């Protein structure tokens, strides 16, 4: 019955199949094969990444829960904890942009509230191909509408994130969704199936045939026929999830349940296997009792469906009636479909017959772990070489083009489709260095950011990994936040290609080194391999989600200059590194050179100075210099306020003008300081050994940049603003 074709349809190798048969002591039936194919898929098992992910530091004194649960948890004091995680929904978003992105939001929300936390913020990291291609415009439009529809309806604000563009994402967009929730420390719940005889309750939407094999789909490359996989994409119902959220939080708040797990990828299979596996128990369920949306579903279909908005609860017998009453209040069913057993098996019956009887341990924990071969890619030798580009004849014109490049340009067209204010905690609107939320009833605030640079990682994976962590922390420092913990979404090509595996290893090394330097634990994340379409892999793109704490929101500053003639202070040094820069890409069409180097000790010192200057109320604004370099960073400070503010910079560095203006040297922050406080800020920097110098002054209506007395740029801020604001709407208006 089980032949090579069937195995290949289930993305299982012959060796894996033989291992399954050995573990269960017989040939699996088709339903069991389906279960193993899902749970042993790359998406669920992390079989290619596990061995390397161990290098990331996961411990810290505030860590309540590290990797391995639905989300990571960090103690923030005062009886509260933050629960956060990032997940990819790349493959479904390519096939069906709206529903793919929407269900990505729905899935990450469930990961958070399943732990007893109320979700308070969503952020997205999105990557698309160039907008000249109509297909990419359609994907962007659909993804944004999908995120907007789900997040807005359920009432969780989408407060920030990043949107970048590159050729490699043309047929492989990245949709990484981050969610953060706030929980009372004493009311955190886990995916446990404890207490033999305890009933297992199915709650939420009915099960249909949608999403069957979603996780296996996300574990294979896409070919030309991929668009036929549309039925594999699930359909989201944010209203149902809102009810589920309220009902689940209510039963958890009242302490009525023992454990809870959402049904995300791999649906009922995943939750019924993982919960007992974590508790050393077994589970027995009857599929006839599972609420079904369609007639005639087979056990295979019911178990593998990825219908959305469903959860599995384990409750004590005496509390079942009360749980059902609360779900009924929210117009939801809570159906008893089985019970916790002594184990060790997952037993499933259907119409009086046992259709699955396999050890949960084998399903969940005994998938083979691969140390796949890796090889340094050949492209690096040529790609890392960069001959100095011809100097820009008109740096001002170049600045107008770089600031209008879609990666840098204003994203208001996107974020105004997201409700970013619901829940009334949003202190900084999207577009700032980091999203900032207040914690009601406290002076403290939470900051969060998503960061990653695929070009840097393509050109130097190890350095790219370290820079991603450093830059995310720098974004937090610019709003005065101390980083607490990291979640990451690692987007890569096919791990069976040795070059991809090499990129993966190196990036993990770089990230691990930076996380150790900043002493921030990684509390979880997600690996998305097989981002290949028609044989081409994406640039390796790790996205770092870092959460920080602000002690006093009254001291918060934003990135925008004030008109009052403040001094503009540069922390750090200009190095003129142009490798991998947005300038090279936009002006010269090159993705080449070595990306900027980073000295992690210097980086930490720069961030400390910024954070302390904010905490001591010494500065008026702070902005990270990143993509686009000093010229773009300064222009953003002029543009980002409610009114335009000009500035004049006088630079004297011994660097070619374009490298000085557009080089992306790390560890730099642009501050503005009122004259009276300047000595204190300079003193602070010098005490920490951080180079700091006044490079200009705010005021006027133009951005003026002079280099050794020669005027390089003179542009009205209104003109810069128009180029920056008009770019994305212009590109998307083409039909």
């Amino acid at each position, binding site marked *: 019955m089980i032949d090579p074709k069937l195995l290949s349809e289930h993305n299982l190798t012959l060796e894996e199949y033989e291992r399954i048969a050995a573990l269960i002591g017989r040939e699996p039936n088709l339903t069991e094969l389906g279960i193993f194919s899902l749970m042993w898929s790359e998406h669920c098992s992390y079989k290619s990444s596990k061995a390397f992910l161990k290098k990331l530091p996961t411990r810290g004194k505030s860590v309540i829960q590290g990797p391995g649960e639905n989300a990571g948890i960090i103690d923030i004091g005062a009886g509260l904890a933050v629960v956060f995680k990032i997940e990819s929904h790349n493959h479904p978003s390519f096939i069906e942009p709206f529903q793919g992105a929407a269900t990505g939001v729905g899935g990450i929300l469930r990961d958070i509230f399943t732990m007893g936390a109320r979700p308070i913020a969503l952020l997205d990291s999105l990557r698309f191909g160039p907008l000249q291609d109509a297909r990419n415009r359609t994907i962007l439009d659909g993804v944004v509408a999908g995120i907007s529809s789900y997040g*807005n309806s359920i009432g969780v604000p989408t407060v920030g994130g990043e949107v970048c563009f590159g050729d490699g994402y043309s047929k492989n967009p990245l949709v990484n969704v981050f969610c953060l929730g706030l929980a009372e420390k004493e009311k955190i719940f886990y995916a446990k199936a404890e207490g033999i005889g305890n009933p297992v309750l199915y709650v939420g939407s009915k099960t249909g045939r949608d999403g069957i094999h979603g996780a296996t789909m996300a574990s294979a490359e896409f070919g030309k026929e991929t668009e036929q996989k549309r039925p594999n994409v699930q359909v989201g119902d944010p209203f149902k999830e809102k009810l589920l959220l309220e009902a689940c939080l209510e039963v958890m708040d009242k302490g009525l349940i023992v454990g809870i797990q959402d049904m995300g990828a791999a649906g009922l299979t995943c939750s019924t296997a993982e919960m007992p596996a974590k508790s050393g128990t077994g589970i027995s369920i009857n599929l006839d009792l599972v609420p079904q949306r369609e007639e005639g579903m087979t056990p295979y279909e019911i178990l593998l469906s990825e219908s959305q908005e469903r959860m599995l609860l384990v409750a004590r017998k005496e509390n079942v009636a009360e749980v059902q009453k609360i779900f009924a209040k929210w117009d939801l069913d809570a159906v008893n479909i089985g019970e916790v057993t002594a184990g060790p098996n997952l037993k499933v019956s259907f119409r009086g017959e046992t259709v699955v009887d396999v050890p949960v341990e084998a399903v969940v924990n005994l998938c083979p772990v691969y140390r796949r071969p890796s090889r340094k890619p050949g492209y690096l030798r040529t790609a890392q070489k960069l001959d100095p580009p011809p100097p820009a004849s008109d740096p001002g014109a170049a600045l107008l083009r770089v600031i209008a490049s879609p990666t840098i340009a204003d994203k208001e067209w996107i974020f105004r489709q997201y409700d970013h204010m619901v829940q009334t905690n949003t202190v900084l609107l999207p577009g700032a260095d980091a999203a900032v939320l207040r914690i009601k009833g406290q002076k403290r605030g939470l900051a969060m950011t998503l960061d990653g640079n695929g070009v840097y990682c393509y050109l130097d994976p190890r350095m790219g990994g370290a820079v991603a962590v450093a830059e995310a922390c720098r974004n937090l420092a610019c709003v005065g936040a101390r980083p607490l913990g990291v979640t990451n979404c690692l987007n890569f090509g096919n791990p069976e290609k040795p070059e991809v595996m090499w990129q993966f290893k190196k990036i993990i090394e770089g990230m691990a080194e930076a996380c150790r330097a900043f002493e921030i634990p990684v509390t979880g994340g997600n690996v998305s391999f097989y981002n290949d379409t028609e044989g081409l892999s994406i640039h390796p793109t790790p996205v770092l989600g870092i959460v920080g704490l602000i002690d006093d929101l009254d001291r918060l500053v934003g990135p925008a200059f004030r008109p009052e003639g403040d001094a503009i202070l540069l922390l750090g040094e200009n190095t003129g590194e142009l490798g991998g820069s947005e300038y090279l890409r936009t002006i010269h069409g090159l993705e080449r050179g070595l990306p900027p180097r980073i000295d992690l000790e210097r980086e930490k010192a720069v961030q400390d100075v910024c954070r302390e200057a904010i905490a001591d109320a010494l500065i008026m604004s702070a902005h990270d210099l990143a993509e686009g370099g000093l010229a773009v960073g300064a222009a953003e400070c002029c543009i980002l306020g409610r009114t335009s503010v000009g500035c004049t910079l006088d630079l004297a560095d011994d660097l070619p003008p374009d490298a000085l203006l557009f080089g992306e040297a790390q560890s730099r922050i642009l501050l503005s300081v009122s004259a009276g406080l300047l000595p204190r800020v300079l003193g602070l920097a010098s005490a920490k050994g951080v180079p700091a110098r006044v490079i200009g002054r705010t005021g006027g209506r133009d951005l003026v940049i002079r280099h050794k007395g020669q005027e390089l740029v003179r542009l009205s801020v209104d003109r810069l603003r128009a180029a920056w604001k008009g770019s994305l709407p212009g590109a998307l208006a083409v039909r």
Partner: protein
Amino acid sequence: MKFGVVVFPGSNCDYDTYYALKEVLRQETVLLWHKDHDLQGVDCVVLPGGFSYGDYLRAGAIARFSPLMQEVREFAAKGGRVLGICNGFQVLLELGLLPGAMLRNKNLKFLCQFVHLRVENAGTLFTRRARKGQVLRLPIAHFDGLYYAPLATLQELEENRQVVLRYVDEKGEPTEEANVNGSASNIAGLVNERGNVLGLMPHPERASEALLGSEDGRLIFESLIQS
């Protein structure tokens, strides 16, 4: 003054409104469950923003059948104060407590942003703390906020001074550009003829604390509290 904030399934600004009234403005405030038939003796009923019943049908079209709406109708008929914010405004239109209907925004996208509003009538129970012509800055967040009514109704609304808030630019001019959702006559908020029911698309509860970027929304709540 006692406020009651109605909770429909899918309401998502219910707690925000509760928080603004209770914690910021320090008023006695209760949440009212939509399946109940009890207004708990409140002086003002607030229908909050959100996506009641998912708004998969016309926004507010199902919420109007919630059991509690019977009491809300009677309460309004007796002159009780009713404030509908965003989805709450849409529910009021569906209930027939205010005239007109909402269509999709003119750009066919959800819009979340700060807007400027001009107070057109400072004599209502909801605006008496403001000056006529005062420009307020409040956020909107909606997909269906293009106010529509037949010409005759619009004329009546103007004649009766029922238009309370209009979308304007920073200088207070009701330009087409400032009318982000494309509403008829730039209408952002209106009262019934009797003046005891206000519906508005902007969110005063999101603009009640300086930390969140504006305190202009307090004017609406404070007007109610004063009167």
